[in-house]
């Protein structure tokens, strides 16, 4: 579907508003048609809400699926035999997980997009890579968790891939030291999940001796929920990382397993950027109308990569705000935004729980 040759030679942050809009209207229309024809559940939804593809004149008008739908249904737009891997979200025990079905083409495009986006921050040369996680998360290659998929995806950008944590999630100082020694003087890519880095890397180093990786570039993602609960935000995180190991280039990314590959990277100014592979619309929760710069709303994500499942337009459960378009001081084109965090569970009114609720 997504014709990689058409877009793969364009730099990842080079499309201005008008050009991107033309490209996206075409791409999203085609994807919507593809999923409409390929996925029965998706077709039922579009028919019932009476979505008229021929008259959809702007991106805001296209229907989007709430992410929770991927937890409840197997949404697939191609023949089951074409599925080569299934990705799952990293739900904690008891929670249901999203299941995302990838065919060869979609999986390949995800990798291409990720490499291209990251190269804007890392350069095009592969770097020695230290993964702040344990090797066991990537062992089962048939069933990819979000964590495993992220690591394998970013591994395309590195060489001499080394895992910093042992199976008990302890820092393997011996391995780290010899890795640093071996690559002394070159840039190093450090990759991991925000919370894992905080808990097992930053905290451990804080207690032990500090190390010096001032030639390191850190990329991390996966969500802030647990850290926000401890009042740790991006600024605190960056400062703490700089303090324990001297890394100054720390880039957060925002993305989800439903749209792997087309991630939103944080620039040097702390803004999350849509690349040529993705876009974002902030919507008013009262009517889903799109909101302009500076207004908080629900974050809808657009990706032109998903061809094997109808995940090109999804509504996240996060709140955020648009900061601008094409005019970030970092020079990257496209929309840039900020994530405020997960929507809060509201108080449930009603009379259906009394005794059992006390045990929670």
């Amino acid at each position, binding site marked *: 579907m997504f014709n990689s040759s058409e877009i793969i030679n364009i730099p990842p942050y080079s499309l201005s508003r008008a050009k991107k809009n033309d490209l996206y209207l075409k791409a999203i229309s085609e994807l919507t048609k593809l999923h409409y024809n390929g996925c029965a559940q998706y077709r039922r939804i579009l028919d019932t809400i009476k979505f008229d593809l021929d008259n959809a004149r702007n991106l805001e008008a296209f229907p989007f699926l709430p992410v929770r739908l991927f937890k409840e249904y197997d949404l697939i737009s191609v023949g089951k035999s074409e599925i080569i891997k299934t990705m799952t979200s990293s739900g904690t025990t008891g929670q249901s997980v999203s299941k995302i079905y990838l065919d060869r083409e979609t999986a390949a495009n995800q990798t291409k997009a990720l490499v291209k986006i990251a190269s804007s921050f890392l350069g095009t040369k592969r770097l020695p890579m230290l993964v702040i996680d344990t090797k066991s998360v990537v062992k089962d290659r048939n069933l990819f968790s979000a964590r495993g998929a992220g690591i394998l995806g970013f591994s395309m950008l590195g060489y001499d891939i080394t895992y910093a944590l042992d199976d008990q999630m302890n820092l393997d100082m011996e391995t780290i030291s010899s890795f640093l020694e071996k690559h002394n003087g070159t840039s190093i890519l450090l990759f991991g999940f925000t919370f894992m880095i905080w808990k097992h890397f930053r905290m451990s180093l804080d207690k032990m001796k500090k190390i010096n990786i001032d030639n390191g570039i850190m990329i991390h993602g996966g969500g802030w929920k647990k850290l926000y609960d401890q009042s740790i935000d991006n600024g605190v995180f960056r400062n703490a990382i700089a303090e324990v190991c001297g890394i100054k280039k720390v880039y957060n990314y925002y993305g989800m397993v439903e749209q792997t590959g087309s991630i939103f990277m944080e620039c040097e100014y702390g803004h999350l950027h849509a690349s040529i592979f993705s876009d974002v619309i902030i919507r008013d929760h*009262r009517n889903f109308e799109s909101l302009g710069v500076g207004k908080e709303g629900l974050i809808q994500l657009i990706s032109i990569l998903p061809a094997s499942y109808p995940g090109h337009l999804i509504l996240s459960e996060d709140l955020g705000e648009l900061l601008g378009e094409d005019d970030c001081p970092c020079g990257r084109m496209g929309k840039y935004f900020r994530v405020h965090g997960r929507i809060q*569970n509201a108080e449930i009114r009603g009379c259906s729980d009394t*005794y059992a609720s*006390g*045990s929670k």
Partner: protein
Amino acid sequence: MLPVANKLKYIIGAASDFKKQIMCPYDPLVCDFLNSLSLELLKDKAAKEFPDVISFGFWCRKANIIRLKEEFSGKRLRLGLGLIFHICPSNVPVNFAFSFAFSMLSGNSNVVRVPSKDYPQIGIICDAITRVLSHKEYSSIAKMTAFIRYEQDDEITQAFSEICNGRIIWGGTQTIRDVRRMSIPERGVDVAFADRYSFCVINAKNLLRCSEKEIAELANGFYNDTYLMDQNACSSPHLIVWLGDGVDLLEAKNRFWESVYKKVASRYALAPVFAIDKLTMLYKNIIDLQEVSRLSRYENLLYVLELSHLPDNMDDIRGRYGYFYEYCGTSLDEITHIVNEKYQTLTYYGVDSHDLRSFVLNNKLIGIDRIVPIGSAMDISIIWDGYDLVERLSRICDVK
């Protein structure tokens, strides 16, 4: 003497002072006490902020209690059962107060476990009860009354269950099962207010005869029945059955939902998480229910999904936060197959209540305990869930 435990707090009354005593239903002292409580609440500045506290205050006033007393006729000698243990809903702030009032009007001593959540309404009502109980003339009632608070604890629940003559249990299926595992004395009575399902019927032609003012009032009543509790209350309707056909029907539906939407837009604060819940529910319904025939959306404030046929398990399909199902037919007899024991309240507009009575009677329906006009769904009454509570919570001494 009542049980004591570290984790158990007496908010009103004390374990050592408590004395189980009984009275006759509608004892003048109790009626008088409730009227004093009504006056106390209605002059309370803090209470004014809470419509639910005010409506409880109104319910307790003399005129209302006298009316109830007159309706409760009978020449037989009736007396309270003894001690009633109330386990009240954690997510409805004032039902504990109604539960208490119903049982004391039946002639009982009461131990009321208030919701574990710290609603301001609980403090306001309990403070008012404490002030009124401190008057000398109510000292005998004071001895018969305790309000307690504890986090879920089987030992404490068991201790009160063992000494009570009856329990009032509000809650979902699991709550009721959990509490019922703890036995009460052989002659003890359990009144369980379980999870229920409610629906609504509107006659299209008669709705079109409404003036603008009447339709606005109707929408206001419907709003109070549903949105006030996000449709989580047992008596809030999820399904609207329209009686009518042709152009009338379309016009009536339009007119009704437009006015509801207007009301909602001016009053209801939709949380972002509920907007997502509603959209997810909508798409799930569209995928799962073959019966979906038409969707009407009024922003994210009001979703109406029309079904061409009602599935047997209709009571499992529930909307929340302003999400309704509708079905159009020419007679209520078309929908008898959906009614089961879960059905509680039928609210109506433009339909004769005698016809609704006949609907239940002629079809010998096993469900539907309550038929009230739109706008009255939330009016809790001493006849609730199909029980006359005073009869349930009292005994007859048969004298010949």
